[in-house]
């Protein structure tokens, strides 16, 4: 007896009772569709998040920010060291495997124009900032080295700031007023609050800047997105807007973005920065770093860890529905064996061997599994496809995450193999029971 023949006979047997077949299939269809959908969903969102973060931050990036300092036995929190300078950035840019470096000094400001005002972050940057952080300018131009040289009072607006302040109007060429809070020593004791007690007072300096460009929208929108920013030449920031100095009087920066010359060079870059900065900061052996070197690896690790947990959970849910589907097949096969006891007896009487009966019933249960699997894959695929039409992007942690949902061939193969496996596992016991029946007793069964 050849296989196509056996398949045909199996199909006739399982399709004899349509309603029963459909109900049994339903269990497997739901299980397999759940597997396809959940795996594709977690995969799509996971890789989307990684892409989204790279897109928002820039690729191959390592960054350096101020660390903690320990003075007279007291350790301050990370970020409080005031020792990272523009010259450090310059030195880092000369290291091997470093493609570009973008030092940034940063402060909070209030931006005012066209009768609107918002609080945002002002960053003093160099022309390299644009390519290192992979920003593009939709309107106007970016900050040039000439702007830096003449310490021009110009600015580039993040998309969020441009929209909030100017709405749909074109901001390029307009003036904005930025309010910068500074702390100065008060000679007349006019300061208030805690600062006043120690002879300091806050003052809001107001400066006018000309908008020369607007950045392309990058994040998922909102206050926490990378679009809520106003960029100025780093030299303008240092001399005219918000001077930030090290204790030695050098120009201080808040962060240095370092782009490695390749993904595989990131670790090398990460390793060569600390010795350089330790030397530049005159740190003695045994003294802690006063800076932190970081990159995306940690962030991405965290994401992939949580994504892994999500897929384990998804797999668990899908596994349970598959288990239920498998029990459904087993149940229906046991019923079928009992109902067809007499048929089994007749087949044995005319010469069917154990293996013939075994394979007959096994084929039936595998057919149910495969049929449910194929329909389940199609249903799951359909669900993934419709979801991908509905959500091409999602907003996660202030980042615009592109969700590219698709069903990978691996998932299809796995789903198919699983459905065949369920058919076999669910069918093996009923099939053995059928094969073991005594022909005389089976024929007499009513």
């Amino acid at each position: 007896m050849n296989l196509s023949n056996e398949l045909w006979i199996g199909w006739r047997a399982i399709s004899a009772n349509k309603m029963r077949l459909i109900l049994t299939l339903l269990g497997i269809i739901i299980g397999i569709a759940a597997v396809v959908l959940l795996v594709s969903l977690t995969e799509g969102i996971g890789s989307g998040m990684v892409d989204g973060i790279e897109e928002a931050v820039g690729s191959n990036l390592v960054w350096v920010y101020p660390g903690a300092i320990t003075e007279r036995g007291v350790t301050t929190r990370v970020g409080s060291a005031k020792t990272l300078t523009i010259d450090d950035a310059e030195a880092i840019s000369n290291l091997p495997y470093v493609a570009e470096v973008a030092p940034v000094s940063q402060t909070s400001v209030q931006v005012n124009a066209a009768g609107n005002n918002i609080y945002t972050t002002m960053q003093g940057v160099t022309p390299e900032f644009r390519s290192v952080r992979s920003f593009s300018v939709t309107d106007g131009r970016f900050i040039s080295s000439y702007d830096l040289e003449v310490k021009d009072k110009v600015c580039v607006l993040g998309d969020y700031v441009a929209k909030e302040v100017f709405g749909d109007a074109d901001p390029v060429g307009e003036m904005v007023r930025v309010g910068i809070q500074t702390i100065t020593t008060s000679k007349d004791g006019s300061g208030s609050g805690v600062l006043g007690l120690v002879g300091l007072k806050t003052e809001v300096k107001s400066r006018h800047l000309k908008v020369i460009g607007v950045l392309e929208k990058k994040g998922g929108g909102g206050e926490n997105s990378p679009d809520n920013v106003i960029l100025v030449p780093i030299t303008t920031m240092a001399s005219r807007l918000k001077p930030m100095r090290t204790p030695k009087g050098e120009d201080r920066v808040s962060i240095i973005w370092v782009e490695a010359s390749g993904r595989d060079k990131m670790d090398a870059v990460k390793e060569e920065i600390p010795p350089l900065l330790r030397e530049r900061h005159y740190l003695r052996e045994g003294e802690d770093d006063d800076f932190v070197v970081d990159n995306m690896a940690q962030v991405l690790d965290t994401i992939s860890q949580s994504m892994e947990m999500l897929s384990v959970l998804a797999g668990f849910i899908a596994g349970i529905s598959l288990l239920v589907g498998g029990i459904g097949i087993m149940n229906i096969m046991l019923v079928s064996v009992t109902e067809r006891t007499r048929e089994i007896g007749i087949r044995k009487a005319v010469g069917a061997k154990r293996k013939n009966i075994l394979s007959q019933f096994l084929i039936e249960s595998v057919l149910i599994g495969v049929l449910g699997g194929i329909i389940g894959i199609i249903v799951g695929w359909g669900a993934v496809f419709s979801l991908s039409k509905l959500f091409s992007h999602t907003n996660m942690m202030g980042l615009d995450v592109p969700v590219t949902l698709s069903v990978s061939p691996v998932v299809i193969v796995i789903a198919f193999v699983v459905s065949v496996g369920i058919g076999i596992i669910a069918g093996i016991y009923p099939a053995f029971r059928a094969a073991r029946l005594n022909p005389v007793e089976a024929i007499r069964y009513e």
Partner: protein
Amino acid sequence: MIELNGITKIYGKGDAEVRALDNVNCSVKEGEMISIMGPSGSGKSTLMNLLGCLDKPSSGNYSLDGMETTTLNDDKLAEIRNEKIGFVFQNYNLLPRMTAVENVELPMLYNNMPRSERHRLALHALERVGLSDRAKHAPNELSGGEQQRVAIARALVQNPSIILADEPTGNLDSKSGEEIINIFEELNKKEGHTIIVVTHDREIASHTNRIIHIKDGKIDHEEVFSK
């Protein structure tokens, strides 16, 4: 060709023990047509099942075509049933979801015969029992006599050496019964099949060469007709 030696079949154990066959000795020669008669419960069906290799005796020897069958395993017995034996039951035992011709093809599913050959032989067997025009009918579209003829076609399709029929006319009216026994007679005379029929009907039995009378699991006596 059939040699039974001290065949005993015991069902159950201990107090529930039933001695369905008790030390049966008999032989059947090739080309014989014999009938088995006896009261209900006397062990006729048990004997037929043993002869048909559907079951094994509790003790004794059964040699078929010179081969001792009692030591064979289930698969080997299945092979013998497929090759050498055709069974006809009182209640026809056709598969209800299959057409007449598919039912007749059934034994050939288990010996790797090509599909077209299977179909050809099945149609031929139906022709021999006069049912060519009913090939595509399901069993429930056929009369009892027709169903039993399909069952006979299934039994003879592979030209087995023995056809065993356990009360084949028991569910039929006398006219249909007559048709059935005529078919057996013709198969025996023209094609030389060995045929063993269990019956309660002397009229049916009178078509055979020899009647074996069974009582309480033992052969009581034999009648031999010289025709």
